């Protein structure tokens, strides 16, 4: 038996084996939803209207979120009932760290059967050891998305006490994730930025394909009613990014369109900025301070490679300087489409791609080097890992979600895996 014969023998043996596809499909169907960690029966959303307040044309309804085991209840909920078994990192998203050790994240598992409405199991989990172990804060929320056949948009932002699970449906917590109350802002919250006093939300009232204009609302972070920022630009995009590098300063951008607007008076007035003339498409904006704004521009190539340019501005986006490019010997890689971009400090920047390495710069973007995360450093088609989120509690401590693993840096340079799936 030579190598060819070994291949043939393996192929022949495989072809004579008929897997039980039907049984396997049943198994997968049975495991579409995780059982409740407390072994309770299947929970659905049970809703009770607590209060409805009409605020400047926007209906804000608050729903009491109550545990309910009945199948016909339209909504259900979660009340903290004590510690549960640790969960893995496989489904972690939206990490929020408040110091080197303590953080909250969302364990998110969504299904979109196609023939019926999408649904998600959402559970706030906490760590007190820098991400090595995570335990549920409360029972999971089972959220249905009526009429939504694709995968719903779900994000989580928190300061440890106040927070929002936002997206197609939006829920607020003011007790560290123990209980949530639904808030209806009349559309999908496509971006949210929390500040110490106020939290801003960008709301789009339509489905993504309909290209409706978005609106910006502000609400007290500790809880209260949402009011619109009437002077804010109404961007016709679902890919809107809202950044607030200081209390009164904010940048509002729409990926792809090149629209970038700035306010320096807490949203009362806004100024539209002109992007650099060679910027093909604005894709990512990050701001450390109003004097340290970075944008990543790129072409719209759907292929593996993508031209990239990094610009910086020290005057709120009024003028731009080219820092680095991917072409002509530039320091940015041509391979990969930019997925995430974070400016942690004026010098320290991080960028990840749909495939390939996480790269970092320690000199304001002039030069870049791989973070040497093994699962990301290969670039061929078998490597399907990518960074899903990057977050930092300060310039030296950061976390990278690389499903099913979580990586951490404690020096702002090197990354090590923590925890496990």
């Amino acid at each position, binding site marked *: *038996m030579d190598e060819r014969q*070994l291949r043939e023998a393996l192929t022949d043996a*495989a072809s004579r084996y008929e*897997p039980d596809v039907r049984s396997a499909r049943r198994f997968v169907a049975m495991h579409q939803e995780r059982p409740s960690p407390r072994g309770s029966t299947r929970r659905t959303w049970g809703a009770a209207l607590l209060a409805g307040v009409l605020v400047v044309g926007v209906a804000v309804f608050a729903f009491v979120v109550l545990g309910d085991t009945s199948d016909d209840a339209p909504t259900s909920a979660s009340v903290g009932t004590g510690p549960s078994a640790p969960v893995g990192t*496989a489904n972690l998203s939206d990490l929020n760290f408040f110091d080197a050790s303590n953080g909250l994240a969302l364990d998110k598992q969504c299904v979109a059967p196609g023939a019926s409405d999408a649904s998600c199991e959402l559970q706030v989990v906490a760590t007190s050891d820098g991400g090595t172990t995570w335990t549920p804060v409360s029972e999971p929320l089972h959220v249905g998305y009526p009429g939504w056949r694709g995968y719903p948009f779900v994000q989580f932002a928190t300061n440890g006490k106040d927070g929002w699970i936002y997206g197609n449906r939006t829920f607020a917590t003011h007790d560290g994730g123990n209980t949530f109350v639904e808030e209806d802002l009349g559309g999908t919250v496509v971006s949210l930025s929390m500040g110490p006093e106020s939290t801003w939300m960008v709301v789009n009232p339509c489905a993504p394909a309909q290209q409706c204009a978005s609106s910006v609302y502000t609400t007290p972070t500790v809880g209260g009613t949402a009011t619109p920022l009437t002077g804010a630009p109404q961007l016709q995009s679902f890919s809107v990014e809202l950044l607030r590098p200081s209390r009164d300063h904010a940048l509002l951008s729409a990926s792809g369109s090149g629209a970038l607007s700035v306010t320096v008076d807490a949203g009362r007035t806004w100024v539209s900025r002109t992007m650099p003339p060679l910027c093909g498409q604005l894709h990512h904006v990050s701001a450390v301070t109003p004097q340290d704004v970075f944008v990543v521009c790129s072409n719209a190539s759907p292929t593996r490679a993508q031209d990239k340019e990094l610009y910086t501005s020290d005057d709120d986006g009024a003028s731009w300087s080219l820092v680095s490019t991917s072409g002509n010997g530039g320091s940015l890689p041509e391979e990969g489409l930019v997925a995430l971009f974070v400016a942690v400090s004026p010098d320290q920047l991080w960028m990840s791609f749909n495939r390939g390495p996480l790269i970092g710069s320690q000199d304001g973007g002039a030069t870049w080097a791989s973070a040497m995360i093994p699962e990301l450093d290969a670039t061929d088609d*078998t490597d399907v890992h990518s960074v899903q989120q990057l977050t930092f509690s300060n310039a030296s401590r950061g976390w990278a979600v690389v499903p099913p693993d979580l990586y951490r840096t404690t020096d702002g340079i090197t990354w090590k895996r923590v925890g496990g799936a």
Partner: protein
Amino acid sequence: MTPDRDFDGFFVESYPGVARALYLALGSSEEAEDAAQEAFARAFRKWDSVAQMERPGTWVFVVAVREGRRVRQKRSRELFAARAGRDEIDPAEHVTLSHDLERALGGLSSRQRFAVVLRFYADLTNPQIARIMKCREGTVKATIHAALGRLRAAHLDEQIGEPNG
């Protein structure tokens, strides 16, 4: 690929191939289907992100192989424990490949067997196998080299050549 891609279509298209590769690597249809089912269940739970991958089949294959290795290790521990407890174990219970092929592969360690199947059945390169098995490329080369050496030593595969990958 869009997030709305039909999971059922993906499942029907991809499941048999993944299960067959695992069957060869594990030598047991039961273990192969356990691992394949778990991998596809994970793919379904994470379908919102998996569906957006350029090649979701590759993702599920990688997960399945890793799950297969985990299943094999778990079964090995169970068999060891059962033997320690003097339980009767039928060695043929988990072996369903043809006798000759199983004889050829049965002398290999689990790691060697996975490497051989990924190299000669799945036609993966050594760097690709290294990433799946979470080891260095040199380790893959050494593993396959040792596997082929064992096959030769057993006088079962005297003319097997070295892989080029």
